[in-house]
């Protein structure tokens, strides 16, 4: 542990002018004099203040930084709504294969046949899993998948000459990305309340939906971890008024082989391949927000999609496409990993969901009594709990760090005060859950004064977040 608490100085401060961390091949053509080929005023006068370090120093620096970071590989990481499941290294091996890693995105289709085949197969897999016939792999993150979906809805109404569709409905449990997406796509977002189960209030929804409604953005299971049991009726209410049902697929880990969005008449949805299909989250990205949709919306998908072309495959531009959402073809490396994961599971993906839901319900059952459980009924892949009265979610979270657990998502969903959203995922054993529950029960008994000091065993103590914002220093 020694060293982990010590301050790691910045890489730039570990160098010395003239040191180099990498050797390039010697020039084999005559050096071009920049002053002769470029306008003088376009040339840089001062060199950038970048580190000047040797390779061993760089490796040690970043290795030491990594030791101050927790991941799934080092700690149980039950971060709700984020599906922090084990990231199989076979996925990394797949993406490192030179035939993919060194493939230029503008290589002609005939020279990228394997890559197109992977994309075509993945489109098929996601179509089977969702029941929706059309797929786009272009969005590079969940939030961009949402935006893509809502832009498709927007374009649909424009195409139909229906100019009155100005609002998108968003349940109060929604991820913040949902209302932000609606705004970005040029809609006004209107909040829908919840019933006693934490689900969309169907009566309130019925009263809100009219000819100005473009879509409802629903998350299923929702962010309280509860299945939206009225989803089919909700779809009907929307469809009666000509509006669409969009499903945020962040929580698809609860649905694999158990529920297909198309069967509930969902029109369009996004997947988070980095959640459901195990591609690494990498400290915040890269991810992939592939979408699936019905035939009606299929012509509006982003450019391009992959189609069969005789024996091979080609990129095609959907007829009424919203346009491109990424420079090339989305985050292909992430698509490749998700494809590999699905192939290593096949129809057994259903077991993934079963174990994820079993684990979450087990935690719910074990925490009952010590923690308040606002929706204490069957949950799906995650469960929302509240600390005992008088204790703060933040303090329990920091206390968990001292027990060696990454805290759950806290203060979300917003509708639950002092919320702690726990998503164990299917890749954790009963022993891990038992130990975690043990820590949670112990923390429920701790005094507020004890918790106030936590964490004391982490690389840093609690931080002064106000100072970071008030005296902004965001670079060396």
């Amino acid at each position, binding site marked *: 542990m020694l060293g982990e608490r010590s301050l790691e100085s*910045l890489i730039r401060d570990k160098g010395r002018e003239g040191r*180099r961390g990498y050797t*390039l091949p010697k020039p084999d*053509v*005559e*050096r071009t004099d*920049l002053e002769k080929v470029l306008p003088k005023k*376009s040339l*840089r006068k001062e*060199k950038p203040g*970048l580190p*000047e370090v040797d*390779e061993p120093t*760089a490796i040690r620096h970043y290795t030491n930084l990594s030791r101050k*970071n927790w*991941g*799934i590989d080092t700690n149980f*990481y039950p971060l709700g709504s984020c599906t922090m499941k084990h*990231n199989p290294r076979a996925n990394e*091996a797949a*993406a490192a*294969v030179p*035939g*993919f890693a060194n*493939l230029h*995105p*503008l290589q002609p289709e005939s020279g990228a046949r*394997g890559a197109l085949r992977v994309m075509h197969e993945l489109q098929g897999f996601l179509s*089977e*899993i969702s029941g929706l016939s059309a797929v786009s792999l272009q969005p*590079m993150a969940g*939030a961009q998948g949402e*935006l893509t979906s809502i832009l498709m809805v927007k374009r649909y109404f424009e195409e139909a000459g229906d100019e009155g569709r100005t609002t998108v409905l968003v349940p109060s449990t929604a991820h913040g990305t949902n209302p932000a997406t609606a705004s970005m796509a040029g809609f006004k977002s209107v909040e829908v309340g919840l019933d006693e189960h934490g689900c969309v209030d169907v009566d309130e929804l019925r009263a809100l939906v009219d000819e100005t409604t473009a879509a409802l953005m629903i998350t299923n299971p929702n962010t309280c971890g509860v299945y939206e049991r009225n989803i089919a009726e909700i779809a009907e209410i929307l469809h009666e008024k000509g509006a669409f049902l969009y499903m945020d697929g962040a929580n698809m880990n609860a649905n694999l082989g158990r529920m297909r969005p198309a*069967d509930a008449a969902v029109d369009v949805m996004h997947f988070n391949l980095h959640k459901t299909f195990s591609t*690494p989250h*990498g*400290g*915040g*990205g890269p991810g992939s927000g592939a979408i699936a949709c019905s035939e009606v919306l299929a012509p509006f998908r982003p450019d391009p999609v992959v189609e069969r072309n005789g024996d091979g495959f080609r990129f095609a531009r959907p007829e009424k496409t919203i*346009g491109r959402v*990424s*420079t*090339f073809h989305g985050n*292909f490396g992430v698509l490749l990993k998700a494809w590999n994961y699905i192939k290593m599971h*096949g*129809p*057994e993906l*259903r*077991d*993934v969901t*079963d174990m994820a*839901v*079993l684990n979450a319900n087990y935690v719910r059952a074990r925490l009952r009594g010590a923690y308040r459980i606002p929706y204490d009924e069957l949950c799906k892949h995650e469960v929302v709990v509240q600390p005992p009265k008088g204790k703060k979610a933040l303090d329990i979270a920091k206390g968990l760090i001292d027990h060696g657990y990454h805290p759950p998502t806290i203060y979300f969903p917003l509708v639950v005060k002092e919320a702690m959203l726990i998503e164990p995922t299917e890749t954790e054993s*009963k022993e891990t859950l038992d130990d975690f529950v043990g820590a949670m029960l112990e923390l429920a008994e701790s005094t507020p004064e004890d918790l106030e000091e936590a964490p004391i065993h982490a690389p840093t103590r609690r*931080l*002064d977040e106000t100072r*970071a914002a008030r005296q*902004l*220093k*965001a670079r060396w």
Partner: protein
Amino acid sequence: MARFTPHTDADIQEMLEAIGVETLDDLFADVSPKFEDPLDLPPVLSEYEALRDVEARAGENVSGMPIFLGAGAYDRIIPSSISAITGRGEFLTSYTPYQPEVSQGHLQAIFEFQSVISELTGLEVSNASVYEGANAVAEAALMTARLTKRDPKVAVSAGLNPRYREVVETYRVEVVELPFDGGTTDFSAVPDDVSGVFVQSPNFFGIVEDIEAASEAAHGVGALCVAVCDPISLSVLETPGNLGADVAVGEAQPLGMPLIFGGPYAGYMATHEKFVRQLPGRIAGETVDREGKLAYVLTLRGREQDIRRAKANSNICTNQAVTALAATVYAALMGPEGLREVAELSISKAHYLADRLQDVGLKLRYPEAPFLWEFAVEMPDVDRVNDALLHNNIVGGLDLGDGAMLVAVTEKRTKRELDVFVEVVANAG
């Protein structure tokens, strides 16, 4: 049981009992409509079998050849140390650093990434990255609208990567086209109602543009200037900040990221500190912990979707932390001199190739314009030339579709490869 789940039958039984249900099916009693068939997916493969399939698919791609394609993604040398760092589980398998006490590794790396971008662009603040180049350009277009309080409407020329322009349009930003002549943009008549003026340098055709002229034109109509720059070029070219640009954005892929058929890469965005509240995405800032020790934390969170919801700057949630880490390690290993050497080697080789092609009778599309490592060369049948190149184990340049090939040359290309390229083109042309 599935591949990565540890549950034994006994575990499952004990857990079901603790929950108070009898079967796994009971856990889905609330699900309606239910899906009860097996998923129609190919049969499960072992890791070994799956990876053999990956190899087989990879074998269907053309690979292992020198690449002369660029147009936004470049085949550059990648130091081995990068994947050794980005592959560490602590970095790879963590998520957004919401809990700073156990995320100092990523937070400091992001802080260092922001610093590298600031140093390269000559602008005070950078965010923690966005998805990739086109996304950075689109986010910058929306940012200019917020800052000028105008409708999102930007002036661009044919010098902007057409794919970036398409993404900007998808994001519902109006685009007006500036004249493009002789390989560079004419900024003399910018409409007065635009929110932003975009200048890509080096532009889509590899040519250095006049960022200063773009800035003056933008400011003359009360708009902001956004410079779109290849980060490698900023080791030799004047910073967009010093040339008056308000925002600099671009694709960070050339900083140590593999081509991997177009992504994942990372987009960078930098601006003046006075505009920081309109910058989308995460920002890591310095602070202290309770014991007064220096540490890092995500800051100015009030701009973001999880706090401000419908009023957020953007819906962006993630950053590209692990690819941004690759860029940071790359910049650290190269340093200012190494980056400059990468640029100079590329420029020297590209100019060598352009000269040789002209020696054998080909014409550059913009012979008078100053270019770095990418140039358009005229040829009546690009397709045929590319076929001939492929036949000689070379991946040729991009067919511009109008009788020219866009050729990119990086430090990776050898003189021998360049000579073979010329020979094949001369014979096929």
